[in-house]
Structures are given as C-alpha cells and as structure tokens.
C-alpha cells in the first residue's frame, strides 16, 4: 500500500508531472530518445554477512555514458550499506548500448532496482502477479539463488515514469539437470520499447552531469528509466531430495577437483582410486555409481556420461570441469523429472558454470608430493557471470610409487544476448591428462610387510599401470523468451573423448583366449575407448494458462538426441614391453538415443503444485564386434571370428511429483518416477529389444524453512528404489558386470543454516538398506557365486555422513580494504562397506580443512586434506589374485584396496585484479 501523499509530496509530484509534460512536448519536437539497452549484466552477490529474513530492495540511479559504460551510480532507495554495496558492485560491471537521440548516442540516467530475497524464502504468492504470469517461487534455501537478486519485475516495485520491463516468468527448467537459466535468462529484458522520459546528455559531454530529478529521486523521478534484473532461478524442486548447492556450501571446505565438490551433497561420497586421469568413483544414496553408471551428469544441460564405455557404462569424467568456475550444482536424488534421461538411475547431477568475481585471477597452488597447480582465469568485467575463460595445469609426483600425474585443462564460456529475447551461451572445453597408477594391493601383503601401504607391487605388471584421457567439447545453447512467458530452448553439443588405461588387478591369473597355452604373462588389462558424438536438445515451455484464479498450468514438450560412434578395445599386455598377448574386446559401436518428453505443471492455488509427465527414449545400437563368436583355435579352419548385429528398444516411463505447502515454512513432497540405464551394447544380441535397466524411484519428504532470524533449512525424506539390473565391478575383466536386480530403501536428513552471519553450516546423514534381490544363480561352472540373494549390496556404505563448515569474517580494516579471513572444513564418514564373498571394509572418516587471508587483490591460503592422517582405502575389493608374494598362490578371495591419499598440505597464492 503506497503511503498517502503529503502536501509537500503532492507539490513535488505536480512539479514532476509538469516537467514530464514539458519534456514530452519537447520530446515530440525533438528526435525521439531511445533508451539504453543492457547488453551484459552481472548479478549481485547476496551479502551473507548481512543476511536478512525479509526481502531487501535497493534502487540505483545509474548514468549510462555514450560509450555504454556505467558512470555515476547513486542509491535511490537503500537497504543498508551491505546490500547497497552489493548492488553497486554488480551494476558497475554492466554494459549497455547507449541511449540514442536522433541516432546519436547520448548519456542517460536509468533506474535499476535490485531485490534480494531472504536466503530461505517461501514461494511467492501467485496472486499479485500479472494475469498471464504465474507467481515466481523464490528459490529454496538450498538453492544458490539467495545470493542472487531475483527478478525485480515485481508488481510491488514502483512503476517508474519510463519503461516498465516485461515481466519474466520463472525460468522453466530446460533440463532437469540444469537448474539455472542460461545467460539469457539473467539478462535484463531490453527496454527497446522504453519510451521517454530519458534524460539525454549531449554526446560530446559524457562526463557532464546528467540531469536528474534530484540526488535522491523517488519512484517516478523524471529522466529515469527502470531496467529490471532477472536473477538466476533454479527450477522448482521435484522432490525433497532435489538439492541445489550454492557457492556458500561448495566453497566452504577445500576441494581439489570439481568431483570433490559433489561430496557436499547428501548421500554422496567421491573417491579417486585410479588416479588423476580416470573419472571419480561416486556413491549416491545407496548406489555405487562407479564412474557414472547410475548418475546422469550434465554440464549446463549437456550430457557427460558416455554410452557403452568399455571401462564402465555411463563413464563420466568430470576432470575437465575446473572447480573455480562451478557456480552451483544441482543434485537430484531420484528420478522424478521428465527431463532426466539415460543413466538417471540414482539421480542426476548438473554443473552450472559461472564466475561471480570478475576480472583476472591467477592462483598458484603447491605443496605435498611435488604438487603444483597453476590457474589463470579471466572473467571480463561488465559481462555476464557465465562468460569466462580459464585454464589450468597440474602436476604431481604422487603420494606413493607410480602415482605421478600431469594434466591440462582449458574451459571457456561466452554468454550473449540478442534481439527479441534471444540469448545464448557457447562453451568450449579441452582436457588432457596422464597419470601413473599404483593399482591395488592385497591387505594380507601389506599386513605382512611384503609391500608398503602407499607402494605398488615390485612387479613389471604393476609398474606399467597408467591411464590417460583426452577430451574436446563444444556446446551451444540458445533460448528465446516470448512476451507471453513461453520459453524455447535449442542446445547442441559435440565431444571427442578418448580413454586409455592399463591396469592389473589380479597379478598373474589370466590365460590367453587367442592362444590358450599362453598363461602367466601378467594380467595387465589395456582398455581403449574412443567416443565421437554429439546431440541436441529442443524444448518449448508455454506461458502460464490461468483459466481460474486458483489454477494455473504450463506445459513443456521437448526432445533430445545423441549419436555416438565408439571404438573400443581390450587386450592383455605383457609388461614391461607391453606386448599384446591376448585380445578380449575389439568392437565398433554406433549408439543412438532419441528421447521425447512432456512435462506438465499444475498449480492449485497457493498450496498445491503437481508436476510431472512422461519420457520415452528410443535407443538403437549397431555393433560390429570383431571378436564376436570367438572360436577355439582348432576351429579356425571352418569358422571366422566376427559378429555384427543391431538392436533397438524403447524405454518409457512416467514421472510425477506433488508439492504441498501447508504452511509458509513447510513444504511436503511425494514423488514417483521410472528411469532407465541403457545397456552395454556389446552384450546385446541381434534383434534384441535392448534390455534397459529400469528403475522405479519413490520418495516422500519435507522441507522446513522456519522464518527465524537466521536462515535454517531442514530436509528429511524417505526413499526407495528398485532396480531391474545392477552392475558391479569385476576385477578379472576390469569392468562392470551384471549382478541382478537390487532394492534400496532409506532415509536422508540434511540441515543447512547460518547461525551467525559469519558461519555457514551444512550437514547431512543418509542411511540406506541396499540388497541384492536375485543375483545370478549358481551354475555348474560357478556353484558358489560371489553373491547370494538378500545380501547387502557390495561396495555400498549403508551410512554416509557429511559436515561442511565455513567461516568468513573481516578481521580488521587495512587501508581501503578489510583483511578478510576464511576458514573451512569438511568431514566425511562412511560406514563399513559390504564386499563380495561376505567380506566388508573398514569404516572411513576423513577431515579436510582450509584457511586463508585476503586483503584487496591478494589472498594467501593453506589447505590440508586428510587432516587426521588416516591411512585409508579409497576403494576396497574382494577377489582372487596372485602377485607372487607368497610361494604358493591363494585362490581364496582376499581384500584388496587402492590407497587413499595421506595427509597433504597445499599452499595457495591468489592474485585477483
């Protein structure tokens, strides 16, 4: 309710109206003035130190020079020094096309409002929004959005005399794994049609003070154009366990890679047992997702998982993602969104890339084990957060024998806007890495002192272990917003990804298939997988349809496609000359995935929202298996090796989520969905209807965000997943093999809070009861298989606990800049993991910590990993091996492990300017 006008205000308003009328007349006589158009826009960072439980609004008056740059900035409406400073810092990085008058650029003053929603806000009520625009739910506490301004096209904003920006509907998710609208969505709506009043300034005097209504103008001030900001906004959560990790959580504890950042998500544990050149091994809520078989990974919506990868189905190498450019991560645990595609079995994870701190940044890191990393990053000022370029090299001697690594990464993204609501971003990435591998060790050998914990076996077959990876990736995304709130997305991507590994898990057990008399030459498995592929995504979401005040609906229809050509080979090598002594795989695969989905969102008043739809994917494979129908040598005279075949199938299923908000601070969710994982192509037979691994996922949960003085968000959920065919690591072949259907049920609880402005706390506990329901039955050849029905799922820790603490505080003012301190800590606990053959691993608990001091453009820091100096196993297995360490080889399954890094200390010097 606007305040009643006092006599004095009436006078001022009258004067203003008169001035406006005069201006209008003069404008009619003079050439029309075209308002400035923002071309690059940077969002304001939420000042966490001044976090507030209510929305904060800052209005700035900004002078746009004839060159489009930002000149004078004054605060028209203050929300306190911290919020004012955040808004000013952001707007100073904006760039515009200058206002024009008669075709000549002129300086102009515009009004820019920023709205900072509370970090833990409830959804905005739908009622006050324009009739065709639904209410925009303010991002939940787990989203990064609290640190960003949200769209200020709020009807509560005073309508200025000049342009009224077109309101923008909440950014619909163009992908379930893309929580953040593209650069275009964060770009302001150009006020191309913005009429006068613009306060033009003679173009030859850009520094001349701009006429304005006063030093502290009020809404409606003459000569001011209002330009709206449209902040990043995650799509609405599909379930309670749909988390968005913002920078405050991601950056609390130290991290060495983008994969490490995933440990912040509830139920996630990440390790790297195969060195720097192999993808992380990831556990998510009862799934041993290995290198990605059960998690759909995307970067800005572009898929990362590789189809029919030889090392592991769904292999996803995240090493090309530099952690410094990760703005947020959405972790959707479960399959409840029609956007989720192949490999979304345990859930999906999307990396959103962006750099908030603009300018140049150089970061040098060095420390334990000859580790050195150099990062150079450029985030051009005045451009979107999503525009940046970064490159890094890293080398390390490794924490033990044969663990040295060298890698290089380049990653860049350019966000742009076009006319008519068109926006886009272009991403390029290149990555190359090579690393030695110490491989696995038998526990009994370490206990007996036959080999050191961080060593490798003194055997040529162990010393020859290594891996290398190379990737080139290109992605383009275009979005268009219509005036009615509809959104159209087109994205295309292409990548060439190469993988090469040499690993020996079992020592000397293998016998040649090609020449059966050959045995004992070492089980050094060579794998090569080269994947060239690309695809696109196309979708359109309608604007909101409101047939009644209490009802609104929107529909999205979309399609995605991928086509990949995969060349893969697996051989046995004899070290140290790496002479090939057996062929195991030699195949070429053409894999195609065409998906269609429909996603409907219905809103019933303020309290009930129903989202859901269906997805269907047609998967087609053409396999040229050069070693198919392998025959014994004595049959060579009558047979030839080789088997070509094709298979096609459809995986379809519904996904639905119900969200009820009975109280402003309480949301309840119920969700169900069916997902799928594509099969390993080489395991398909001719004409087979592609036996997809189907998953049924169900969850019920609550999310509480009490409106306390300090932000608190608590999430609790119970879930269940039923998987038709699971995979587990087979060390004999060094890859994943089928182990039958599995069932998981469990609970997750997560808390995120900021008890004091300088302290960020995030913690979670996940419990899962995961069992094998029908493992492969006993056979004549294997009457005592490794798995029995009802046993706990191997490698899956029943309990995962994570705690992140971040402290950020200004210590003292030194000159013009404060001396700021940052402390961070991350703690992981994993309960004992069941292993095949009835064994189990030890529990695991790890602590990482960091500290840094920053003053102006320089920051000094120290990071410590495995601060408790635990000797732990990054990965644990149970199988038979013969490394020649005992006079007589054992044929009993034994515990093996790949050592995790010991205490590592790294120093960091960061220069930013």
């Amino acid at each position: 309710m606007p305040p009643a006008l006092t006599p004095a205000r009436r006078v001022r308003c009258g004067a203003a109206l008169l001035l406006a009328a005069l201006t209008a007349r003069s404008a009619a006589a003079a050439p029309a003035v075209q308002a400035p158009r923002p071309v690059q826009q940077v969002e304001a960072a939420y000042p966490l130190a001044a976090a507030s439980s209510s929305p904060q609004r800052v209005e700035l008056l900004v002078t746009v020079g004839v060159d489009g740059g930002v000149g004078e900035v004054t605060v028209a409406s203050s929300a306190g020094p911290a919020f004012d400073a955040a808004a000013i810092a952001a707007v100073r990085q904006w760039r515009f096309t200058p206002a024009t008058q008669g075709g000549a650029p002129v300086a102009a003053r515009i009004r820019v409002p920023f709205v900072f929603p509370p970090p833990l806000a409830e959804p905005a009520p739908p009622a006050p929004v324009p009739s065709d625009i639904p209410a925009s739910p303010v991002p939940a506490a787990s989203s990064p959005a609290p640190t960003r301004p949200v769209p200020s096209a709020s009807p509560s904003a005073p309508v200025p005399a000049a342009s009224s920006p077109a309101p923008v509907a909440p950014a619909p998710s163009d992908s379930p794994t893309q929580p953040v609208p593209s650069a275009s969505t964060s770009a302001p709506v150009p006020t191309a049609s913005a009429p006068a009043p613009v306060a033009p300034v003679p173009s030859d005097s850009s520094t001349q003070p701009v006429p304005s209504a006063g030093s502290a103008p009020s809404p409606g001030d003459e000569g001011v154009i209002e330009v709206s900001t449209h902040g990043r906004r995650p799509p609405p959560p599909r379930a309670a366990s749909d988390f968005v990790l913002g920078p405050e959580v991601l950056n609390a504890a130290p991290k060495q890679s983008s994969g490490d950042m995933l440990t912040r998500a509830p139920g996630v544990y990440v390790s790297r047992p195969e060195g720097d050149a192999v993808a992380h091994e990831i556990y998510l809520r009862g799934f041993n997702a290995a290198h990605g078989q059960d998690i759909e990974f995307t970067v800005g919506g572009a898929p990362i998982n590789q189809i029919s990868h030889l090392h592991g189905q769904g292999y996803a190498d995240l090493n090309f993602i530099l952690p410094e450019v990760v703005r947020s991560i959405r972790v959707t645990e479960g399959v409840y969104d029609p956007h989720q595609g192949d490999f979304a079995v345990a859930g999906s994870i999307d990396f959103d890339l962006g750099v908030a701190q603009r300018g140049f940044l150089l970061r040098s890191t060095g420390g334990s084990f000859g580790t050195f990393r150099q990062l150079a990053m450029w985030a051009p000022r005045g451009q979107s957060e999503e525009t940046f370029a970064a490159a890094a090299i890293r080398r390390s001697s490794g924490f033990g024998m044969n663990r040295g690594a060298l890698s290089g990464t380049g990653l860049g993204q350019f966000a742009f806007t076009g006319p008519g609501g068109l926006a886009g971003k272009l991403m390029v990435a290149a990555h190359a890495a090579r690393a030695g591998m110490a491989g696995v060790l038998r526990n009994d050998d370490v206990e007996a002192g036959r080999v050191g914990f961080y060593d490798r076996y003194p055997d040529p077959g162990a010393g020859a272990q290594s891996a290398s990876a190379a990737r080139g990736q290109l992605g383009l995304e275009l979005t268009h917003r219509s005036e009615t709130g509809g959104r159209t997305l087109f994205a295309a991507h292409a990548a060439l990804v190469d993988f090469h590994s040499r690993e020996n898990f079992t020592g000397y057990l293998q016998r040649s298939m090609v020449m059966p008399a050959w045995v004992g030459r070492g089980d050094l498995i060579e794998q090569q997988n080269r994947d060239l592929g690309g695809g696109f995504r196309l979708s359109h979401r309608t604007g909101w349809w409101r047939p009644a005040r209490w009802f609104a609906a929107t529909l999205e229809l979309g399609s995605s496609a991928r086509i990949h050509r995969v060349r893969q080979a697996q051989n046995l090598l004899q070290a140290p000359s790496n002479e090939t002594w057996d062929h195991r795989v030699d195949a070429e695969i053409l894999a195609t995935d065409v998906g269609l989905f429909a996603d409907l969102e219905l809103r019933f008043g303020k309290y009930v929202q129903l989202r859901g739809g269906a997805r269907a994917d047609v998967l087609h494979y053409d396999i040229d298996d050069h070693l198919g129908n392998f025959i014994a040598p004595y049959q060579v005279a009558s047979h030839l090796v080789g088997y070509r075949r094709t298979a096609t199938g459809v995986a379809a299923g519904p996904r639905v989520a119900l969200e009820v908000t009975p109280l402003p601070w309480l949301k309840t969710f119920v969700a169900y969905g069916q997902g799928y994982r594509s099969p390993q192509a080489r395991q398909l037979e001719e004409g087979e209807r592609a036996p997809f691994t189907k998953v049924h996922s169900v969850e019920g949960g609550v999310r509480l965000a009490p409106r306390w003085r300090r932000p608190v968000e608590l999430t609790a959920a119970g879930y269940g997943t039923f998987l038709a065919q699971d995979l587990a690591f087979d060390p004999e072949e060094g890859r994943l093999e089928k182990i039958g259907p599995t069932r998981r049920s469990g609970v997750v609880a997560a808390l995120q809070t900021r008890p004091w402005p300088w302290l960020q706390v995030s913690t979670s506990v996940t419990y899962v009861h995961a069992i094998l329901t029908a493992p492969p039955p006993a056979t004549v050849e294997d009457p005592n298989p490794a798995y029995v029905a009802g046993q706990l799922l191997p490698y899956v820790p029943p309990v995962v606990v994570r705690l992140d603490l971040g402290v950020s505080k200004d210590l003292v003012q030194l000159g013009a800049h404060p001396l700021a301190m940052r402390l961070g800590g991350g703690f992981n606990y994993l309960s004992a993991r069941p292993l095949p053959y009835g064994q189990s691993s030890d529990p695991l608990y790890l602590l990482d910590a960091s500290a840094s001091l920053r003053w102006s453009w320089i920051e000094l820091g120290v990071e410590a990993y495995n601060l408790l100096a635990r000797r732990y196993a990054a990965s644990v297995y149970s199988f038979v091996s013969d490394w020649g360490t005992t006079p007589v080889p054992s044929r009993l399954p034994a515990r093996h492990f790949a050592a995790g890094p010991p205490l590592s200390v790294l120093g960091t010097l960061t220069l930013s300017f």
Partner: protein
Amino acid sequence: MRERSQPGLRDSDRGRFKLRERSQPGPRDSKRRCLLAAVLLLACGSSGGEPFSYPLAAVGAGAGPFPVGDWQVTLTRAEVAIGPIYLCATAAASPDLCDVALGEFTEVAVVDALAPVAEIGELHARPGEPRSAMLDYGISWFTTQSRPEALATLGHSARLTGTAVRDGASLSFDALVDVVPPLRGSPALVGVRAHSEFQDEGSRLELRLDPRAWLTGVDFDALAASGLVHSINPGDPAHAAIAFAMTTQPPSFRWTHD
C-alpha cells in the same frame, strides 16, 4: 586391517541348520535354534560369511605287510609331500572351474603316511559346500614358473622305503617319486572327489593316504630279476607305476564337525 566379523547368515549357518534338522533337539539345540533365529532376523541384508580356518590332518594306512602280487610288502618309511590343496565348489575341480576356491592349504607339508594321524596344519576356508579338490604332491607348476618346482624339503613328491618278501627272498627298495603337474598353471591332481555339505570353524579335514595302494602297480618280479636292493627313481618303470597310482588313487577327504 583385520578382517571384521559381521552378523548375518552365512552359508555355513544354512548347512548347520540342515544337519540339525536330522538330529533330536536338546536344550543346547534349543539355545542354538534361538541364536539361529536371531541370526536369521538379522540376516536381511547379510553380506555372507567371513573366512575361517580349521585343522587339516593326514591319516596313514599303516606299514603292512600287505600283498602285492606274490610279494608281501612292508613299508619302513613313507614320507609324502602334500600341498597345495584347493577345495572347490564345482563337481570337478580344475583351474578353470575353480578360479575362486572354497578352501585352501597353501603350504607343502611332508607327512608320515605310516602314522595313524599326523597334523598338517590349518586349512583356510570360506562358507560353502566343497564338492571336489585339486592338489599337488609337493611339486607345482604355477603360472609364473617356467618349469615345475619341488617346494617341499623332501625334494620329491614321496619317498617310500620298504621290503618285499616272497618265498624267503627279500627285496629292499627306496623309491623317490615325483608327481609332476602336466600343464603350466594346473595342479597335478584335479577333479578329486571331496564332498562336505558344509564347513565351518568347527570342521576338521582328514586326508587318508594309502601308500600301500600306490605300490600295487610295481612289478616286484621284474625288480627282483635285476637285484635285491633297488633305488627307484624317475624314469624307472616302477617309478612310473607309483606316480600313476598316486594320481589315480589320490588321498580321500573326510570331514568331521564338532
């Protein structure tokens, strides 16, 4: 890094349960049944059983005398190198069908096959139902070895010393026997029948060695024709007969359970 015990039902538990079904229940059985029921309740999601060990012993057949054709043979010394031994779940153990064993004795012991009972050592095992075995007589040819090697201090698979008497004539012999695996990566004896419905910490395995049977193929008449004192070595027909018999008449496996 010790192996951790874990509650839950093991294969061995199932085996034990089957046995008890055939016996009369007593107070101790009732207690065990309660315990078993508790274990069964906890068994939802068991990951199986942990490895364990139990004793392995050799049972000899005695010195004799025993007949071999017209000869009465008496052994004065019968040392047999035995091991490694692998227990397998398949009906016919072989390296291909027993890449993961149910039990093993990964040493080589030299046992006195004339003694009624000789303790060999501990057999390491995991829950399951052994159905066959494969083993060496002290000479193995592992995948990493270019040729077979004798692992026992004996240097041979067996040493059998004794006398053979016929019609007042006495022949003494001293046989050093080598039973060599025929293939690299394969034990000398594969597919040896060895069955037990279960095995657990309370089990005991006895290998019954019968060196008397190994001499039945020796042609003592031919030996006597060439002298009364003989050293039987590899390459001799008598050696081939003994080595052949040692493979065709392997040790028999007998389990007992507490």
